């Protein structure tokens, strides 16, 4: 059976500590920020946003929203626009793969991504002297001039597949594969699993009435779900922004 890997992020449990961001960077050999890097030009495949209900004073409610590549399943915008076939939707796992060796750096995919979940390598990857010894051997360092994004820690999937193959199995043990952010979350707010498996706890959580997806109206079928008991948090998923004529006509 083909897998459809996805996440359910419980916004009510997120404290905004940022452990997922650092663990993601360490796992994927993302370099420390260049001196001029900002929130816009840095590389944060997992980025936690602080959001609020807009009220002031003691009535103000705040929440933290971890945003990563949404692994869109249907008409994946970045796949559609890439002139180099550097982005592909893996039919076996549902993971949207980014291949930096093919990337030209045109950044069409960044423009097309409705979630701003893609990052461009503006600078050469540089670590302080000697620190390259601490790099994860399972992940290649990306060069300047290419786009990168979350690939659900694909190196960990490879390791799990190798382990399964060594044991003579055709499918991986689900306990052997979880992205770094899932492992790092101190409150267990991020859960990961196979959405195609109806018995998977993540699949069940994704079907709960509290679950929602960001910008679901675009029809790209993201595989990253969010969950909250708070109505104002759920309302953030579909902001009241201006709609195009096509959206108004066709919904």
């Amino acid at each position: 059976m083909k897998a459809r890997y996805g996440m359910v992020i419980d916004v009510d449990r997120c404290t905004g500590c940022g452990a997922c961001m650092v663990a993601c960077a360490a796992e994927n050999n993302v370099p420390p920020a260049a001196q001029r890097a900002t929130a816009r030009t840095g590389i944060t495949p997992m980025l936690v946003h602080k959001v609020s209900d807009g009220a002031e004073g003691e009535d103000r409610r705040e929440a933290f929203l971890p945003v990563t590549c949404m692994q869109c399943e249907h008409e994946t915008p970045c796949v559609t626009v890439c002139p180099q076939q550097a982005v592909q939707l893996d039919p076996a796992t549902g993971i949207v793969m980014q291949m930096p060796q093919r990337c030209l750096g045109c950044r069409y995919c960044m423009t097309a991504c409705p979630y701003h979940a893609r990052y461009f390598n503006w600078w050469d990857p540089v670590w302080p002297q000697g620190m390259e010894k601490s790099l994860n051997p399972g992940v290649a360092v990306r060069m300047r001039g290419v786009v990168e994004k979350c690939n659900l820690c694909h190196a960990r999937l490879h390791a799990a597949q190798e382990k399964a193959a060594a044991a003579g199995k055709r499918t991986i043990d689900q306990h052997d594969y979880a992205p770094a952010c899932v492992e790092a979350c101190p409150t267990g707010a991020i859960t990961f699993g196979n959405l195609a498996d109806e018995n998977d706890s993540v699949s069940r959580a994704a079907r709960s009435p509290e679950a929602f997806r960001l910008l679901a109206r675009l029809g790209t079928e993201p595989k990253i779900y969010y969950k909250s008991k708070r109505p104002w948090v759920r309302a953030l998923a579909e902001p009241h922004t201006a709609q195009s004529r096509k959206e108004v006509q066709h919904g």
Partner: protein
Amino acid sequence: MKLTRRDLFTWGGGAAAGLLLTPVPWKLLDDTSIWTQNWPWIPQPAHGPVEVKNSFCSLCPNGCGMRVRMAVGWPVGISGMPHHPVNQGALCPLGFGAHQLNWHPRRLRQVRYHGRASSWTEALVAFQKACAAGSVAIIDGYPGRAASSLFQSFCKQHGSYGVVLCTEERALGPYETWSGVPVTTLGYDLENTGTIVSFGAPLLDGWSAPGRFTRLWSERAAGMADPQLRLIQVEPAQSRTAACAWRWVRIAPGSEAALAAALARALREEHLAPEDTPMPPATLAESAARCCISIEAIRELARTMVARGPVLAISAESNSAVAALNVVLGAVGARGGIVCRRKRAESYAAADSLTGSFSAVLIDSSVPADFNPNIDAEVFRFAGWEGGPGRADWLLPAPGFLEELTDIPTAPASSIETYTIAVALAPPPPEMRSAAQFLAQVDPSAPLVEQVIHARCGQLFHARTGRLKREQSTAVSALDSPEMLKKELCHGAVWVDDPPRAGGIRCRLREWPQPSGAAPCAATWTTAWVPPVLPPLATKLYQESVLRETPPRSAI
């Protein structure tokens, strides 16, 4: 056929357009792009077999359990240790990038005397001269370790020993004053509490071991309209903890003590607290004016607090009014309140209170970088990294993260006694030396850290109490020898004592205490962090997002 100028342009244009339809230009562009991006200075990770080892973080006194991925002899990744009884698999964001700290550009790599390069020999001679001239003071930031006992032994002959406690332990200070039980023996029984009233303590943002309260909150409170564990955050601004709390009470800055007194008075007036508990002198109207909230809001908060017991009040820093509120609530020595661990620890002198004439002060690398001794003497400061406002005549390079063998005693404010050993996983640079190694050169008759750890394992084995916690628990009494116990501890097992008994501490107050303690200030989440620098990957939090403001005392 005559070739005209027009034909030349036509053919040239056609060829150029036709070439665009072939893969040639795109392939050339692609290859050029790849060539220009693969410069030889782009680092390539070393390849080799990956193995996972267990160890413990020594960057703050909480000693969180870690699983360290090693490749080619170096740590390449860190994750939490799920079976650790305190952090339960969670780490702070800084811990996940801590394996890169040893290559921080501000790593201290040589002995410095007043900023210029010096040597260990010169430092040793200077320290020995100071020892001969008078007494010395040794300041420790992480008491209870094997190294700490060596410091104490040295000080018995040569001077005084003082400690710099972390904020969680300092907040327990009033109970030590009132009961005589040392703060290093006291802890919060969070696991059995029904309501926590936090007076500015960043419970969900780096308070104590990060996993301890966040796991509890996640399971019993997060997102619930009527949670099993009610977290009430009293704070002037909406901090990260206030944003996640069940209820946030906004008060005027610096009025925590006034609100604690007002709550105690409201409890007494509404007969929700025993009559023999002290009554604060300030009226509710006075306190309400000081806190900028209404009297009715104070009364309502008092009723809400006790609606789901046990109730526990926690302050960010030492605050006698908050401690007195716990006495009124009956939380001292009770289940779900302030508890006393089974093994009574020593009482240490605070580093600030050391008096007398000293010829030298030796500061261990476990002391936060911004600590300055109030002693007029020559300062020998051990540090893994440069920086920080701390005064130092001699700056001595100490082993960094996971570079030395150390034991990990009980985490501050923990309700249960624990003990384990963190082995060195990375080789330290040759010029590094710990304070214990330095003192062993001054006094060669002193035992080594390894010998003290071995002796402690022997004591634990012969006491035959508690259990060893790994994936499965094993009773210490089931082990064959002290060597086996030590081997297990070195491989990631944690010795856990039996749970404390209620009633190990009693505080009786006749009068409401005078306001005391440090001036209240916004608690920051890195207060327990010892190095003056942060892991370079912390730039993801501070520079490449708007998630956090950089702590004022640390450099990335």
